[in-house]
């Protein structure tokens, strides 16, 4: 093995090592902890960028380790992994900063940051996993590491949420386990991207492959919050805001969505999946989830719950996108993976800011809040507009590709779904924005935290604003060489050019 082959492992370790070390620190060693966290996060971002150049130059990064018999632990960096790894690396950095500010002075921070870093490790691992086994390992790892964060507050509600969370994720995990083993039995240890193994089996094992597909979808669907397996997501919102922001809006749910992408593209391959008539039902399921999530979001008064249902809805764009054959629509789905992450994390940061600064949690309490927290609400507004799909924000770009791709594939019904969802997004976001900016406050704010010059401590403000600006930037400069869109396009093209 040369150095390149160790790099995937090192990328994973950049969050694992600080995470583990943090457990050995004393609760009050804030400085060391922060330094460890931020160093890890920065190093990870740098490494991911370095690897991006490497991959563009055509270098390969593959770490193989035999667990035993035929189980193989394989980390491999391809463009798709980079897409997800970059997202989680950057957002980890931002969220770490946020979490430092958010949890200032609260108990059990050591535990929080330790598990937080380990969660990121898991999601990075999911990104870099090179075969189904490795994917599954990190997938379950993620479940476990997230649990302490969900129940972090230790309240009855949090514990209950943790229980619900576990029922779903462990359930999904075991189903996925069965699926992965089954897949393994059928094909042996196969790397992602090698779809020929299954194709060769297609003729005689059609029914088996169909059932297997749905077993895997059921397993992944829990984290991807596909209807009717999404029930955990709104409940898990009792976790502290950084957790909701990074994990529940991005890492965990993306793990599921990312898994679906891998499943369709890198395990079955679009052609086979289409031959077996698997894609349309998946797309319909995703479409239903999109509408359902939006409808449910409409009636939530709790801001974080509203955002959670919005996540349910927005995530299924990815599933729907990969379930429609075509380069354009695949690009849309992939870029949504990144864009949705940016926008949703902003929204959650803002919700966290509101809760942390003013102690407000309900949509109905937000009248006139724009005057008290202009920057926060500005970021919120940008992100919400993005979610609706308004240009020139990130969400527009994904919807544009999904929409045009849908037309291209001759399935204009998905455009109808997209637009209906946009309308619903507008219906649940615009009232919030309107209330925040154009209504006058009902009463005096009960201020929980203040900063001297800013509306709220900079560690809370900066991440929100930064991600909001990023989601604007990636939309405005979508066509540049450096945008997520470009990367997504390369990935999508590589899928469709390999046949």
């Amino acid at each position, binding site marked *: 093995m040369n150095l390149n082959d160790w790099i995937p492992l090192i990328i994973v370790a950049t969050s694992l090592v600080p995470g583990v070390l943090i457990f050995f620190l004393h609760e009050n060693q804030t400085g060391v902890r922060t330094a460890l966290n931020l160093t890890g996060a920065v190093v990870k971002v740098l490494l991911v960028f370095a690897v991006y150049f490497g991959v563009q130059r055509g270098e390969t990064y593959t770490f193989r380790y035999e667990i035993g018999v035929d189980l193989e632990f394989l980390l491999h960096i391809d463009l798709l992994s980079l897409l997800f790894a970059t997202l989680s690396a950057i957002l980890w950095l931002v969220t770490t900063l946020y979490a430092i500010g958010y949890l200032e002075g609260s108990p059990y921070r050591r535990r929080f940051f330790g598990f937080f870093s380990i969660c990121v490790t898991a999601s990075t691992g999911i990104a870099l996993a090179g075969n189904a086994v490795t994917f599954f390992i990190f997938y379950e790892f993620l479940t476990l590491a997230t649990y302490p964060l969900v129940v972090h507050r230790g309240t009855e509600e949090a514990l*209950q949420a943790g*229980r*619900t969370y576990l*029922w*779903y994720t462990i*359930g999904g995990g075991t189903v996925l386990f069965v699926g992965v083993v089954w897949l393994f039995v059928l094909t042996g240890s196969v790397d992602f991207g090698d779809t020929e193994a299954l194709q060769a089996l297609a003729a005689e094992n059609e029914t088996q492959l169909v059932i297997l597909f749905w077993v895997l979808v059921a397993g992944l669907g829990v984290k991807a919050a596909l*209807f*009717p*397996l*999404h*029930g955990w997501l709104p409940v898990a919102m009792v976790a502290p805001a950084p957790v909701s922001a990074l994990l529940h809006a991005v890492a965990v749910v993306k793990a599921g969505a990312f898994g679906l992408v891998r499943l369709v593209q890198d395990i079955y391959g679009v052609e086979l999946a289409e031959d077996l008539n698997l894609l349309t039902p998946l797309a319909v399921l995703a479409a239903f989830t999109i509408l*359902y999530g939006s*409808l*449910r979001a409409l*009636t939530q008064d709790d801001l974080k719950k509203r955002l959670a249902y919005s996540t349910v809805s927005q995530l299924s764009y990815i599933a729907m996108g990969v379930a429609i054959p075509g380069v354009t629509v695949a690009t849309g789905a992939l870029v949504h993976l990144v864009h949705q992450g940016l926008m949703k994390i902003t929204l959650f940061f803002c919700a966290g800011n509101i809760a942390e600064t003013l102690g407000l949690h309900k949509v109905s309490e937000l009248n006139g809040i724009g005057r008290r927290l202009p920057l926060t609400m500005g970021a919120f507004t940008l992100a919400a*507009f993005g979610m*609706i*799909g*308004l*240009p*020139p924000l990130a969400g*527009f*770009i994904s*919807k*544009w590709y999904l*929409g*045009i791709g*849908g*037309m*291209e594939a001759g399935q*204009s019904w998905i*455009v*109808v779904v997209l*637009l209906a969802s*946009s*309308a619903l997004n*507008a219906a649940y976001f*615009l009232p919030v924005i309107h209330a925040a*900016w*154009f209504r006058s406050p009902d009463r005096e704010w009960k201020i929980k935290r203040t900063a001297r010059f800013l509306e709220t401590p900079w560690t809370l403000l900066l991440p929100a604003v930064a991600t909001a600006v990023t989601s604007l930037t990636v*939309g*405005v*400069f*979508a*066509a*540049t*060489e450096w945008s997520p869109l470009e990367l997504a396009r390369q990935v999508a093209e590589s899928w469709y050019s390999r046949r």
Partner: protein
Amino acid sequence: MIWLLVILFPLLLSLVAPAAEGDARRRGALLSAAALPALLAGLAIVPVETAAFPGLFLGAEFGLDTPRGALLTLAALLWGIAGAFAGAYLRRDAHPVRFAFFFLLAMSGTFGLIVAQDVPSFYTCFVVMTFASYPLVIHTATPEARRAGRIYLVMAVAGELFLIFSLYGAVQAADSLLLVDLAPAVADAENGRNLLLLGLIGFGVKAGAVPLYFWLPLAHPVAPTPASAVLSGVMIKAGLLGWLHLAPLGQPDPTGWAEMLIVLGLLAAFGAAAIGFFQEDPKTTLAYSSISQMGLMTVLLGLGMKAGASEAAVAGALALYAFNHGLAKGALFLGTGVVAAVSHGRLWVMAGLATGAIGIAGGPLTGGALAKYGLKETASLAPSPWENLVLGLLPFATLATSLLLGRFLWLCWKKPGSQAEDSPAGLVLPWALLTAAALILPWWLNPYLGLDVPVPAFSFAAWFEATWPLVAAGAILLVALRLSEKALPCLPPGDFIVPIERLVSMCGAAAKHAGLRYPARGSIDLAALSDRLLALEDARELMDRAEARLSRWRVVGALFILIALGFILAAWAI
């Protein structure tokens, strides 16, 4: 670079808007200066050529052609002047900075959508304009403004959805992001008919087309006057511009929507005038007049989609018409602000207003006359039944417009003026400038920008044709208003939105009643399921008892023997 300046300059100025918080004059200067680059570009005073920005959006391209040059000039002029007007108008406003910010944002969007050559930038700017106008609509924060804002927003979002659907399809069919490629692609595409319809609906919301106009008489009047002016003068033209991009002009219409457009346009021209006549607020009357005028432009577009018309001529005529209407309507809207603010010299103001009104109605020597002529020219090229129909109805449309605007003047006159006036000059000057521009500029710009609307030769027949509707309208008004001013029935603004609103709220209540607003959880709640399973008292007891039994020696003994026997038997099985 000029293109970026056109769009970005207002955007940048919007960021410094707070600097002009207290000073009306500085604010006026700021708001009008923002339109300067656009004006320069529109009049092609600086060299303009199409420029591509490959990294922007999905690869942006900006440029101008003749009709869009006219529109940009219109937008820049109107916006600049309205901005200057706003400086003074908002001197006692609670949130002048907010107004300025969104005014500039909407300005940027409007300029952008006019100069955009590619779909994403066009749509982006379109959206920016739409959403930036919302705060302008609800700026006064009165209940009416809120209601209007709500309806505006719903309609705007709905319009965007239709629009983007149509754009997705058109872009996909054209396999190009450029706006110029859309219309041919739509004409050729298999589903072009549907795409075009979607586009017509989507832009139709903005253009105030029948039957999507009802937000307009609510939203335009409640906005602060300068905002009303730009809303009614320029923003509704954005819809028209959109139609122009999508509709295949000057060729046999493959889609069959041309007739629909003509009929709906005529309906708008007369219907809106009729409804507007029975309004009580002068600004609402003006809004209806805008719908009516847009109806005529819709007719023009419909005719342009018939065979025989030349694309350039249709576009030119439309641009000229829009230009004239935009300036004049802007002038009238500003005029309502002036007439409400001055205490002395109301008569002069009324005279100015009348001039503007005549300009819209197409009175002789006004820009409107030229615009109407362009309309006629295009109509005469249309195939047979439509040509006669439109040409025959046109004078009556003028009559209707004249009646409506007469009613408007009457309402203005009746409206009590301001008691204490401090600086009407800040209001009067921009208004006067705009009125003058509305009268003169169409004549100058027609050749200057190469719109190629033929200037009619002087003839008494033409004079008569242009004048009699005005005179007749004046006569009817004098009689009618004298006779039955008290008895004049009045219609609610937004007309049929009122029953719709009631219906919607009834449906909402019904849905709430039926529990539909809170649909069941819908997910498989594994935790609850497990709870339920574990809470099944009987089953649990059964299991507990079974476990207790299993630890009794007697039971164990039986099981032991059974299992041993089971194995022995199984040894004989296969």
